[in-house]
């Protein structure tokens, strides 16, 4: 019996780690978002709880936990209770397939990508049922909008992902990363348009601005979660941020080389040792961070905050030590550094999300649908044909990888220009029509 259980031990342990760490991570993504937003808007952001607001997520979580839980009159209680749980569950289950590093993956499924797509498509139910069971107009409209939006943009996202699949010829996420290693190029450089389509579609899928219709505050107050409060509301929030991390992870794995180091095929070694110069970046980064924290510590206003800042510095030092120590061991090097690079890429992707959110106004719902169906999906299809052609040119005609993809990318760009142009023309016609009324 023990033999039966044994292979499941590591995955279960990884799963527990993910489930335990993820809410915390999501909380800090929120803090990051608020800090980035503040930076872009010429203010400071949270500064009160902990130095530079470092404890803000924990304070927020505590506050949400002890808030009153309000259930609207005539709400469908069971579904009202179930919906946020469903949202979070589906978001967490999707992590099962994501390779955070070469050794750190809960399950390497042969249908890994399909699994993630399948599970995240279930996330719709959390939104729809929550909106429906609240018994409120705003919630219901938010729910209906979100269904339409998610269904449309899932198509575009799926089509964009297929081009990476064609490059790596596998559905297993680990195999896809290995393919990028073997071919010596991140897929984003081969299929930039697919990456762009996925970027846009993933913003829409996670309901982030400029596509945040299900919760457009100036129109629908808070959309499907208008009637939610306290802990249930925070579950939705957790699900949203967990989903953000998932789409970022998928994009990282498929387009940005997963856990691979930038310039993974360059091996510049420090003379006399086996260590590579580029591998020194992660420990040095954390060392610098620790140094900064130590410098800032005396400037903190309260003694507790000084201590906390030093603790943060110690934590960074610990990470730097772990990353540095792994340089000496060939076994742990890819595992630990892989996780570092993976998370770094995920955060870059999320930063792009935030940047876009604070820069652009919100689309209107019909414009969103137009963008999805009339531009992104045709473009994704064209791109798919382009990738196919390029692969044939590469493998059958012996073209180089880059000339082949340059050609098809340019062709796809031309189609994109045409589509956008047509869209603009249609807009003008609509405007003239409105004038005529």
């Amino acid at each position, binding site marked *: 019996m023990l033999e039966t259980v044994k292979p499941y031990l590591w995955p279960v342990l990884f799963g527990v780690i993910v489930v335990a760490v993820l809410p915390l991570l999501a909380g800090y993504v929120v803090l990051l978002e608020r800090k980035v937003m503040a930076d872009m*808007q010429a203010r400071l952001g949270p500064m009160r709880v902990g130095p530079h607001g470092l404890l803000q997520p924990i304070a927020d979580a505590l506050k949400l936990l002890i808030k009153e839980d309000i259930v609207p009159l005539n709400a469908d209680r069971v579904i009202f209770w179930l919906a946020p749980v469903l949202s979070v569950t589906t978001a967490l289950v999707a992590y099962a397939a994501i390779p955070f590093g070469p050794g750190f993956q809960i399950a390497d499924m042969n249908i890994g990508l399909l699994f993630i797509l399948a599970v995240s498509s279930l996330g719709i139910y959390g939104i729809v049922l929550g909106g429906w069971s609240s018994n409120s107009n*705003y919630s219901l409209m938010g729910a209906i909008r979100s269904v339409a939006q998610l269904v449309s943009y899932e198509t575009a996202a799926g089509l964009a992902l297929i081009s990476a699949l064609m490059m790596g010829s596998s559905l297993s996420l680990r195999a896809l990363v290995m393919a990028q290693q073997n071919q010596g190029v991140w897929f984003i450089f081969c299929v930039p348009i697919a990456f762009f389509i996925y970027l846009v579609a993933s913003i829409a899928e996670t309901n982030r601005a400029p596509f945040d219709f299900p919760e457009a505050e100036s129109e629908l107050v808070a959309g499907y979660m208008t009637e939610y409060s306290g802990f249930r509301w925070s579950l939705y929030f957790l699900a949203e941020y967990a989903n953000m991390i998932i789409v970022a992870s998928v994009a990282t794995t498929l387009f940005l080389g997963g856990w691979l180091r930038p310039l993974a095929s360059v091996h510049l070694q420090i003379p006399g040792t086996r260590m590579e110069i580029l591998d020194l970046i992660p420990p040095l980064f954390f060392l610098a961070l620790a140094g900064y924290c130590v410098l800032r510590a005396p400037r903190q206003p309260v003694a507790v905050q000084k201590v906390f800042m030093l603790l943060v510095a110690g934590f960074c030092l610990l990470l730097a030590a772990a990353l540095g120590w792994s340089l000496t061991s060939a076994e742990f090097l890819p595992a630990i550094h892989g996780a570092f690079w993976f998370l770094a890429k995920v955060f870059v992707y999320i930063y792009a999300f935030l940047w876009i959110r604070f820069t652009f106004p919100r689309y209107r719902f019909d414009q969103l649908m137009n963008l999805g169906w009339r531009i992104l999906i045709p473009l994704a299809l064209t791109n798919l044909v382009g990738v196919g052609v390029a692969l044939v040119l590469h493998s059958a005609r012996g073209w180089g990888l880059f000339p082949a993809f340059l050609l098809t990318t340019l062709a796809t760009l031309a189609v994109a220009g045409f589509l956008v142009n047509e869209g603009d023309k249609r807009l003008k016609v609509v405007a003239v029509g409105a004038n005529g009324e």
Partner: protein
Amino acid sequence: MDEYSNRGGSSVSTTELGADEIILNMGPQHPSTHGVLRVKLKLDGERVAGTECIIGYLHRGVEKIAEHRTYQQFAPYVDRMDYVAAVSNGLGYCEAVEKLLLTEAPPRARVVRTILTELQRIASHLLWLGTHALDIGALTPVFYCFREREEILKIFEKYCGARLTTHAFRIGGLQYETYDGFEADVKRFCADFTHKIDEYETLLTLNRIWVSRTKGVGILTAEDAIALGVTGPVLRASGIKWDLRKAQPYAAYDKYDFEIPTREHGDTYDRYLVRMDEMRQSQRICMQAVEDIPVGAIMARIGKVLKPPPGEVYHSIEAPKGELGYYIVSDGTVQPYRVRVRPPSFINLQALDKMARGGLVADVVAIIGTIDIVLGEVDR
């Protein structure tokens, strides 16, 4: 009472297809109705089949209060109407009473009034720009706008001690002399501000999403605008060159060189552009005015007790939101017999139905923003 049933945001779901139309209540507690405006939307799916504004949630009886106050005592009340452009309200009222008294403020007071009023126009437009962009979903411009508005409010604070409801002017001139460094402050602000407007414009003017959200949305033709009595930037965006600062100059506007920005389509985008240009023009006026402020008295000789001769007067100025008119009837006592205010927001709000009908729900939000209403002024 009316054809619309009284269903709030939390009522039973009515989005069935069978009934062709549903009623959605926006406000009075809704994030984007700018205060306590309540709009009942009759929706056909996502299309707006009709709107009805329900106002009065902020009614304080300002006009009635005036009948029980002396002329000077009433002056602070007008600040509470359009509370984001209090200086303009004060200017209109003071000039109206001065007209009633058959007197005029001295030249220095008039120039200072012009400067402060134009600064107030910029501040009001900045607030409009920030909230309008926020309604359309751009989160960042509002903070930039408030940053510059803050500078203006600082100048107000230094001048008269108050930031929002300033009560900056008195009947007959000014209470306070300008503080040391007033000119320098205004000049510094004006010099910086040109770049700041460019900054807002880089964020919005050519942004595809912004253009697609505002162009062709909420179109108001010139005929409709005139028929509805719309004034201010909303009117000028429809292509009518009408600005009281040029048409019947007051304060010191006849001395300065500025233009009246107009556009022709009358949509939300044009109104946006008109207001942006107006801020530039206001900055231009301030620059000219601050260059030479005449020296001399700041208060006309009118005495402490004001008893205007019996009669009536209508005086209007170009407030940031449009024509702000005061109709005052005097019966020869210290208190006005009747004061009637023509607030620009109230009149402009009438155009909402014309602009919103046939559009989408999201457009209503944009249109309420583009009219630039302040409920304190609408309800009085």
